[in-house]
């Protein structure tokens, strides 16, 4: 048995370690008023509180962008990296320390554009981590440039006469990646749905990818309904294995039944032009092998002394 410090012993006996929301609060967030990122932050903090997650057991990794400031505002371990590369750092953390929980936050430019390669391959590795992409359909931190998910015809600083490329269908891209194991979509302004989606993602073993439609009132107010009003341009997916749909949403938007274990059905929904953004669990497959587990299974677990002995055996082969 490990020896415990006195305080730890008392805490353990009395079960006084009771994390409150404050335990997860880092620096004061510096996003703009009305920014959708606030809602995502408090949703994650609430989930941690409800799940009583030990703050030291979490590493939040991000790239660069408004959204990537996230780790600063969360009182866990945090790594605010470089633009587009969050998935690689996160993969490293999990491979290095499978005992830690990894949360990745990225913007749409961060993930789908500059980080495109790492996004696709990260999904294919299916390393155990929760990935949240805050998709405001714009480059916000650099002040209003077109992003891969910006709707065709949108005027931005780099496309003043309207963007010419059709927006990227990131859901259907991901459903085409071998090993995709958890793919959900939610929105920053549908609180109950957001909470439930993040919680489901957190409990998934493998890469749980959540695209969060996020309001940026500064640069893309037009993207998801007018002026912050909850005019919902989306369709809810209903499934007993999926994300429960609250009663309030039933009146707001159409609901379709969807079996989240059916990849073909998921692809059809993702490809449907006439349906607005589907919210819910699009695809779920808990039996996909998890990369960190597979990779670690290839290595023998040995003591340092044994390692020296085996290294000596290796050196024997080179000895004249």
């Amino acid at each position: 048995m490990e020896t415990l410090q006195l305080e730890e012993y008392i805490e353990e006996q009395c079960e006084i370690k009771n994390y409150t929301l404050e335990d997860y609060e880092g620096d004061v967030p510096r996003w703009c008023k009305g920014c959708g990122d606030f809602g995502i932050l408090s949703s994650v903090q609430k989930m941690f509180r409800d799940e009583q997650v030990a703050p030291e057991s979490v590493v939040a990794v991000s790239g660069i962008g408004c959204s990537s400031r996230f780790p600063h505002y969360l009182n866990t371990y945090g790594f605010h990296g470089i633009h587009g590369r969050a998935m690689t750092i996160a993969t490293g953390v999990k491979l290095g320390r499978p005992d830690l929980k990894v949360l990745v936050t990225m913007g749409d430019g961060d993930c789908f554009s500059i980080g495109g390669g790492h996004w696709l391959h990260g999904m294919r590795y299916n390393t155990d981590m929760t990935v949240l992409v805050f998709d405001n359909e714009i480059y916000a931190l650099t002040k209003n440039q077109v992003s891969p998910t910006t709707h065709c015809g949108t005027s931005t600083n780099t496309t003043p006469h309207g963007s010419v490329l059709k927006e990227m269908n990131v859901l259907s891209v991901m459903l085409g990646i071998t090993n995709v194991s958890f793919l959900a979509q939610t929105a920053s302004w549908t609180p109950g749905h957001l909470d439930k989606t993040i919680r489901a993602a957190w409990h998934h073993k493998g890469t749980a990818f959540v695209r969060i439609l996020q309001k940026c009132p500064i640069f893309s107010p037009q993207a998801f309904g007018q002026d912050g009003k909850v005019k919902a341009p989306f369709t809810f997916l209903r499934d007993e294995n999926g994300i429960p749909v609250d009663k309030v949403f039933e009146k707001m938007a159409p609901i379709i039944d969807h079996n989240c274990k059916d990849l073909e059905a998921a692809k059809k929904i993702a490809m449907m032009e006439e349906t607005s953004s589907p919210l819910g669990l699009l695809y779920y497959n808990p039996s996909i092998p998890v990369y960190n587990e597979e990779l670690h299974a290839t290595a023998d677990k040995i003591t340092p002394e044994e390692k020296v002995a085996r290294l000596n055996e290796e050196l024997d082969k080179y000895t004249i």
Partner: protein
Amino acid sequence: MKEPKKIKLEEHIVEFVCDAGEGAQKAAVSFAKVSAKMGNSLWTVEIIPSEIQPPPHTMGSTSGNRIRLSSKPVTNGGNLTNVVVAFNEMNLLSRIKGKMLANDVVVIIDNKWANDSDETIRKQYREILDDLKTKGANIYEVPIEEKTMTLIDNPQRGKNMVALGMLGYLYTRDMDILADEIRSIFKKKSKEIQDNNVALLTLGYELAKETIDFQYVIESTPFKVPMVAMNGNEAVALGAVAAGFEHCSMYPITPATSATHALSEYFGRMGGIVHQAEDEIAAIGVALGSYYAGRPTLTITSGPGMALKTEFLGLTVMTETPLVVVDVQRGGPSTGLPTKIEQGDLLSSLFSTPGDAPKVIMAPTDIEECYHVMITARKIAEEFRMLVIVLTDANLATGTQLYPRPKLSTESFPLPIDTSPIPPGTKPYDWDEETGLSRRIIPGQPGGMCRTTSLNHSPEGKVNHDPDMNQKAHRMRSRKLMTLQKSLKKPDVYGDKEGDLLVVSWGSIKGPIDEAVDNLRKEGKKVGSVSLQFLSPFPPGLKEIFSKYKKVMVVELNYSDDWDDPMVNEDTRRYSQLSMLLRSHTLVDVDCFSRVYGRPLMPMEIYDALSKKLAQKSK
């Protein structure tokens, strides 16, 4: 029969070349091993065809080994080749074109091509040999294939053994040891196969005895300590395991890949993992994430991969995360010469990142150092929370050298990952004003929750745009380099400690330089040389060492303009990389001699360059 004449030698260079797939490499490695067992030192270089399946009987298909044998320790591939065994004239031609053969080279070649049905082959065979002969070569045309077929039907599967037997005779090798070696190669095969191969070996021995009326004797003294023979990439990989690295994250690139192949082998048995990432950016990203989380991790690459990693190199410096990056240098720029040596990545390693990014750069000079450098690199990376770049090269990567078997202990391993609680108020960048050092907090430690950011930050790890804080953070990161520098010792000078010329170098060119220095000193010239294991920070005392010589010159393998080029003058001349750094570091007028031949410089080439420099009137 008359006893063959015995020719005593201190050292010799022998090559064995054939078409890819004809087994020269296997035979040559056995020859090298037996020579080492008998007590010769050696340096072997692989001769690798440029394509995976080149057409046979062409220069491009030439495959084999070049072995320098010596009665004294060797640190490099030496000068021109003295003996070459070739299975066809095109293999031979590729070595002639590479300017690798001495004028009086002894050639042993299969004579079957002299009577080939194809007239072009007959003609080119004759022309190539005649040409060599007029230059002074001593040529033995031997029925290698014909003789092989007296024992087996398919000569492709045995003539390498016949050739090996011939080399065994020529170099007076102990045929019992050679036969044992052959049996051990085929130990998984039947007794019959083993016997057949030994019979082929004996056949070759007898064939050589009938044809060649002399034998070489290279004095050998069995080694007092156990020795290992391996190439530099294997040494890096073994050194990495011995250093306690547990993860390697990589993307394949020549000539670095074989180090990661070796690591993949070792790690499986020794509790580590190799992650093949989607590109070099991801490779370093994963390595950084893993080391940040406490796991000793390295990434191994070559020039083009280093170019892709630059933004992450900066992040490593900014976040003060320990990391070791091995760059097995090849010819550049761009794809350049993928399989060939160059020392072209010194300046880009130092300066590729935006802003000021102080980092440690180390360069092993031989294969033994490739092993030991990994242990030092990990310790520095962790103790100083710094990026350590290890620059090896294609010559070290594929060359094989003998060196004393390293002693292993758990002491070179790091302590287990720290999971102890962090006292309240501990800062993630609690810089010590004098040393710049600070305690690293590792994720998972209770109470230590903090942010690690690519943005400028305060000791608390918080984003900070304050002018003074930015100045301070830079100073602290720079200070660590100073702290390390103070712990380094003044480099040793080889040869004369003062005199007319000091040669400065780094990396694997040290061996041939020291040999050139030896030869000049034998003629009474006052010359010394110094090799820098640390390129960042430079070791202390360089200016003082330089001041003891009339002239200082760097010799290295990257591009510089030659003084005797009529287009070059004081204004236009571009210096080689190390000389550029040393000029600014010491304000001494350091000259340079550098080449980008895609191969190491030979001691005699360096000797010529140094002689010229010594004879020069002005500095």
